[in-house]
C-alpha cells in the first residue's frame, strides 16, 4: 500500500545467495574474454600483433579495431568512443584488443601476449589545458559550453544611490567520484542461429545499449537481443557498451558463448565516474544579505569521450547559483575533453559539484556580513513562483525554506564533543532537476495483466537495486488491492523507459503502471457498481475490501474478480514537455526540480586531523513518501555517498565507500510532502536530490570547526590539521 513499507519481492532470493548476476551466468562451451588495455593516457597505436595470443593454448579468438566496421563508436549523445581503439588511445585503460579463450587463465595469458606498439603522446590531464592544447579528438575539446546570462547587474538602489556591495570570491575543486557499483561491468553473449547475438547484460538502459551495440557491429537492431540480468548496483552509470559490443563480436566470430567480467582495477580505469569540477565563484550581496549577483566559471572534466557530459552541463547550469533568488547571474560552464577516463552520470550529476561551491560561498558571505548562515540562506531562498537563473519560473512545490528550517530547528546531537576534539556544524541546501531535461521527449509504458486474481506487471524499467520493483507492487496494491503482483522486466520487448536515476521511474514508469492498473479497476468495478446502481468512481478498494464512499457497501475484492477471467491493459506516462536552453542558458528546460537540506555535525581532532561525522540531519522534498522504509534507505545511501565524496573516497584507490564507522545513521528532520503536480501520487525521486548538499555540509562543518578555507574535496587529515 502506498505510504507503508513493503518487503522487496526479490529480497529473499538475494539474501539466500540465489539471485543471479551476470558474473554468475554460464553457458555450455563458454569462452572467457579478457581485454587488452592501454597503459598510456595518450598514444598513437603503431601496431597490434595478436600472433602471440594465438600461440597460447586455449585461445580461440582475438579481435582488434580492424575486426569492427570502420568507425565503430558508441556514446549516448555523440557516438565518439571507439569500441576498440583505432590508431590512437585517449586514456589509460582504453580497450585496444580482446581475447577469448577456454579458461580465464588462458584468456589472461592471451591478453598479456598481444603485442601493442605505442608511440606515447603528450597527455592532457588538466581540464584547463583543453582550451589551448591540441584537439584530442577530431570533434575538438569542448564538449559543451553554456554561457548563462540572466538579469542585469544591480548597481543602484531604488533611490538611485549606489549599492553597498559585499563581494566574496572562491576557487573550488571537487574530484571525480568512482561509481563503486558492487558488481563490476560484465556481459555474456550467445551467438544465435540466425547470425545475430543474444546479450545477457545488467543494462539499466537496454534499448540504448542494444541500439549502440547493433550499430557498432553493423547488425540490424533486431538481430541483437538484449536480456537485462540481475544488476549488482548502479550509482548512475553501469555497463560499458564497448565491453558488451566486444563480447558480442567475439561470440559471433567464434560461434561460442563468450563472457567477460571486469576486474575491479579495470572498472576503475574505464570511466563512468562523477565529473571532476573546478569552479571559480564571485558572489555579491547587499548589506542586508540579499544576493545581487553570482558570477561563475565552471569546468567539468569530461574525460576522453563525450559520454553524457553535455546533459550534465545542462543540469548543472540551472543549479549553479543554488536554490536562491539571484537577480543577476553570469555563469560559464564547460565540459571539456582530457586524457582522463570518460566521466559518466552519478547520483546528483552536476548538482553535487556546484552545491559544494555555492554553499561555501554562502558561508563566506554570511561571515563577511556577520550574519547567521541559515538566516542568510532563508533570506534568499527560492519559493514557489520564483525564477531559476535559467529564467524558468518554478510552478511546483519549492520547499527550500521549510527544508532548511527543519534541519536548523532539529535538536543538536545529545552527546557532547569527544574530549580533545573541535565540534563544527555546517548547513547546505541543494536542488536537483529531475527527469530528462531540455526537450528530452521521455515516456514510459507498462502492461498490467490480471489473470484469476494474479497480477503481472511488465515494464521496460530495470531494477538496479533502487527498489523500483517494490514500488510497482505497492501501486498495484493501492489501486487493485492485490499485494503480491509479479513484476517482470520487459527488456527491449516494450518501448524504452529510459535509464534509472533522476527520479525517472518513480515518476514515468510508476505513472504508467498506475494508469494501467486504474483502467483495470474501472473495468472490473463497473459491473459491481452497476449492481448497486452507482458508478465505479464512488467505490474505493482498500485493505482487500471494496467500500462505497458512504460505507454502505463493503464487499471482498473477490467480487471484482468473479466474472472476469483475464484482463490486460497498457498504461503510458509522459514527462512534462521542456525546451532546450538557448545560447544565454535561458529556457524552460527542467520538467521538475527537487530540493533537500542537510545539517552535518563533526568532531575533529585538531592534532591528528581525523574527522568523525557525529550527526547528519536531513530534510527532503519528497512530494509524497510512497514507502517509508525504502525512502529511508535511499536517503541513507545518498548520505553515505556524499560523505564518501567529502571524506573517504579517492578515485585512485580501489574501493573506499564509507563503512559503518565513517557515517552515522541519518536523522530525517522532515519529509516534506507537498505533492508534485503531474507526478503519480505526487511523489518525486529522492536519491538524487538527497546526495546534493551532503558533501557541502560536511565541508561546512569542518570549516566551522577549524576556520580553514578548505576549497577542495576530499578532506584528508593533512588538510584539516590545525595548530
Amino acid at each position, binding site marked *: 500500500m502506498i505510504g507503508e513499507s513493503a518487503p522487496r519481492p526479490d529480497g529473499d532470493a538475494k539474501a539466500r545467495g540465489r539471485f543471479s548476476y551476470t558474473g*554468475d551466468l554460464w553457458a555450455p562451451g563458454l569462452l572467457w574474454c579478457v581485454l587488452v588495455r592501454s597503459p598510456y593516457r595518450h598514444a598513437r597505436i603503431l601496431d597490434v600483433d595478436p600472433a602471440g595470443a594465438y600461440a597460447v593454448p586455449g585461445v580461440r579468438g582475438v579481435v582488434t579495431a580492424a575486426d569492427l566496421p570502420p568507425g565503430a563508436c558508441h556514446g549516448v549523445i555523440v557516438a565518439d568512443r571507439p569500441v576498440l581503439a583505432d590508431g590512437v588511445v585517449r586514456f589509460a585503460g582504453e580497450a585496444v584488443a580482446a581475447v577469448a579463450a577456454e579458461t580465464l*587463465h588462458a584468456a589472461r595469458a592471451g591478453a598479456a601476449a598481444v603485442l601493442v606498439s605505442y608511440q606515447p603522446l603528450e597527455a592532457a590531464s588538466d581540464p584547463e589545458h583543453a582550451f589551448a592544447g591540441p584537439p584530442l579528438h577530431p570533434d575538438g575539446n569542448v564538449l559543451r559550453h553554456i554561457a548563462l546570462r540572466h538579469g542585469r547587474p544591480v548597481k543602484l538602489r531604488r533611490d538611485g544611490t549606489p549599492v553597498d556591495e559585499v563581494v566574496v570570491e572562491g576557487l573550488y575543486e571537487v574530484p571525480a567520484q568512482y561509481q*563503486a557499483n558492487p558488481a563490476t561491468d560484465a556481459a555474456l553473449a550467445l551467438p544465435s542461429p540466425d547470425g545475430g547475438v543474444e546479450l545477457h547484460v545488467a543494462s539499466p538502459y537496454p534499448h540504448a545499449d542494444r541500439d549502440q551495440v547493433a550499430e557498432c557491429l553493423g547488425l540490424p537492431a533486431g538481430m541483437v537481443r538484449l536480456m537485462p540480468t540481475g544488476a549488482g*548496483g548502479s550509482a548512475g552509470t553501469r555497463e560499458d557498451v564497448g565491453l558488451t559490443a566486444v563480447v558480442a563480436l567475439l561470440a559471433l566470430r567464434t560461434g561460442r558463448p563468450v563472457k567477460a567480467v571486469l576486474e575491479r582495477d579495470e572498472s576503475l580505469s574505464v570511466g563512468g565516474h562523477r565529473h571532476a569540477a573546478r569552479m571559480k565563484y564571485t558572489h555579491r550581496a547587499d548589506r542586508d544579505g540579499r544576493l545581487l549577483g553570482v558570477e561563475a566559471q565552471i569546468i567539468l572534466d569530461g574525460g576522453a569521450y563525450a559520454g553524457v557530459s553535455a546533459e550534465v552541463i545542462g543540469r548543472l547550469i540551472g543549479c549553479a547559483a543554488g536554490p536562491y533568488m539571484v537577480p543577476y547571474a553570469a555563469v560559464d560552464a564547460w565540459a571539456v575533453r582530457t586524457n582522463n577516463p570518460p566521466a559518466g552520470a552519478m547520483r546528483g550529476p552536476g548538482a553535487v559539484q556546484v552545491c559544494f561551491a555555492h554553499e561555501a560561498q554562502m558561508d563566506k558571505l554570511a561571515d563577511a556580513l556577520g550574519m547567521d548562515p541559515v538566516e542568510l540562506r532563508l533570506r534568499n531562498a527560492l519559493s514557489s513562483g520564483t525564477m531559476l537563473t535559467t529564467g524558468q519560473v518554478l510552478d511546483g512545490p519549492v520547499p527550500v525554506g521549510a527544508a532548511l528550517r527543519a534541519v536548523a530547528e532539529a535538536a543538536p546531537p545529545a552527546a557532547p564533543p569527544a574530549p580533545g576534539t573541535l565540534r563544527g556544524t555546517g548547513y547546505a541546501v541543494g536542488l536537483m532537476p529531475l527527469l530528462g531535461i531540455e526537450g528530452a521527449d521521455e515516456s514510459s509504458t507498462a502492461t498490467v495483466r490480471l489473470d484469476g486474481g494474479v497480477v503481472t506487471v511488465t515494464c521496460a524499467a530495470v531494477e538496479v537495486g533502487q527498489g523500483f520493483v517494490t514500488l510497482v507492487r505497492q501501486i498495484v496494491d493501492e489501486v487493485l488491492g492485490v499485494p503480491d503482483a509479479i513484476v517482470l522486466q520487459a527488456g527491449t520487448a516494450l518501448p524504452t523507459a529510459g535509464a534509472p536515476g533522476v527520479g525517472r521511474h518513480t515518476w514515468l514508469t510508476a505513472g504508467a503502471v498506475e494508469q494501467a492498473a486504474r483502467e483495470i479497476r474501472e473495468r472490473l468495478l463497473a459491473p459491481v457498481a452497476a449492481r448497486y446502481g452507482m458508478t465505479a468512481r464512488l467505490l474505493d478498494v482498500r485493505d482487500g475490501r471494496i467500500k462505497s464512499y458512504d460505507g454502505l457497501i463493503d464487499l471482498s475484492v473477490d467480487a471484482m474478480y468473479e466474472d472476469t477471467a483475464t484482463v490486460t491493459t497498457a498504461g503510458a506516462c509522459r514527462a512534462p514537455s521542456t525546451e532546450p536552453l538557448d545560447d544565454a542558458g535561458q529556457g524552460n528546460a527542467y520538467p521538475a526540480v527537487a530540493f533537500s537540506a542537510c545539517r552535518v555535525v563533526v568532531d575533529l581532532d585538531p592534532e591528528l586531523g581525523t574527522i568523525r561525522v557525529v550527526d547528519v540531519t536531513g530534510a527532503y522534498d519528497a512530494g509524497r513518501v510512497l514507502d517509508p522504509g525504502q525512502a529511508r534507505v535511499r536517503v541513507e545511501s545518498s548520505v*553515505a555517498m556524499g560523505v564518501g565524496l567529502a571524506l573517504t573516497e579517492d578515485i585512485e584507490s580501489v574501493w*573506499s565507500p564509507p563503512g559503518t*564507522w565513517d557515517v552515522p545513521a541519518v536523522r530525517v528532520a522532515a519529509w516534506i510532502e507537498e505533492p508534485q503536480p503531474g507526478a503519480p501520487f505526487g511523489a518525486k525521486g529522492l536519491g538524487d536530490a538527497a546526495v546534493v548538499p551532503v558533501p557541502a555540509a560536511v565541508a561546512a562543518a569542518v570549516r566551522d570547526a577549524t576556520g580553514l578555507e578548505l576549497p577542495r574535496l576530499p578532506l584528508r587529515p593533512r588538510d584539516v590539521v590545525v595548530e
Partner: protein
Amino acid sequence: MSGPGFDFDAAPTTSYVLRVNGEARLIENAWIGENLLYVLRERLGLPGAKDGCGQGVCGTCTVHLDGVAVSACLVAAATLGDREVRTIEDLDNDPETAGVQRALVESGAVQCGYCVPGVVASACALLARSSEPGEVEIRRALDGHPCRCAGPHPMVDAVRTAARRRAPRETHSTMMFNVIAPPAAGGTE
C-alpha cells in the same frame, strides 16, 4: 595473477581435497595460486559468494573458514588442508541464518543484493561467537561490507535486530519451564 611475462603453461598445478559445506570435494590439476573464491565459483559451481574486487576490500566474497568470516579471494585454496569452508549455499540451511536474512530484508539492507551473501556470512560468524554483540562489535564485523545501495546502517540495524530476537531463545533453552515466550514471528521489539 596475470601480467606480461607470466607463463601460464609452466604454472605449477596440483590436485587436492577441499572440505566445502560438509563434503570433501576433489580439485584436480588446478594452478596452486587459485584463490578460494575462484575454486568455489568456477570449479565447484557455488556462485553464492560474489566477486567484487579480488583484493579483500569489498566483502562480497566472504565465506566461513572454520567458522571465521574471511575474504575468499585472499585465501589460496590449495593451502587449506582439512579446514572447513562454508558458503552461503550451506549457511542458508541454518535456522540462525534465516533470522539474519529476514532482518536484512526487513531493514532494507537488501537492495541490489550483491553484497548480501557476504554480509550474511559475516553476521552469522559474529552471532556464533558472540551471544549478545554490542554496537561496536556489530559495526566492526560489518565494516568490511561497503554498500552503495543502502549505506552501512540498514545492515547494522538488521544484525542488531537478529541478535535481539535470538536472545530469548537461548535463555529459555536453559530453563526447565517455558516461562519466557519464544520469539513471535513478528519479532520481539
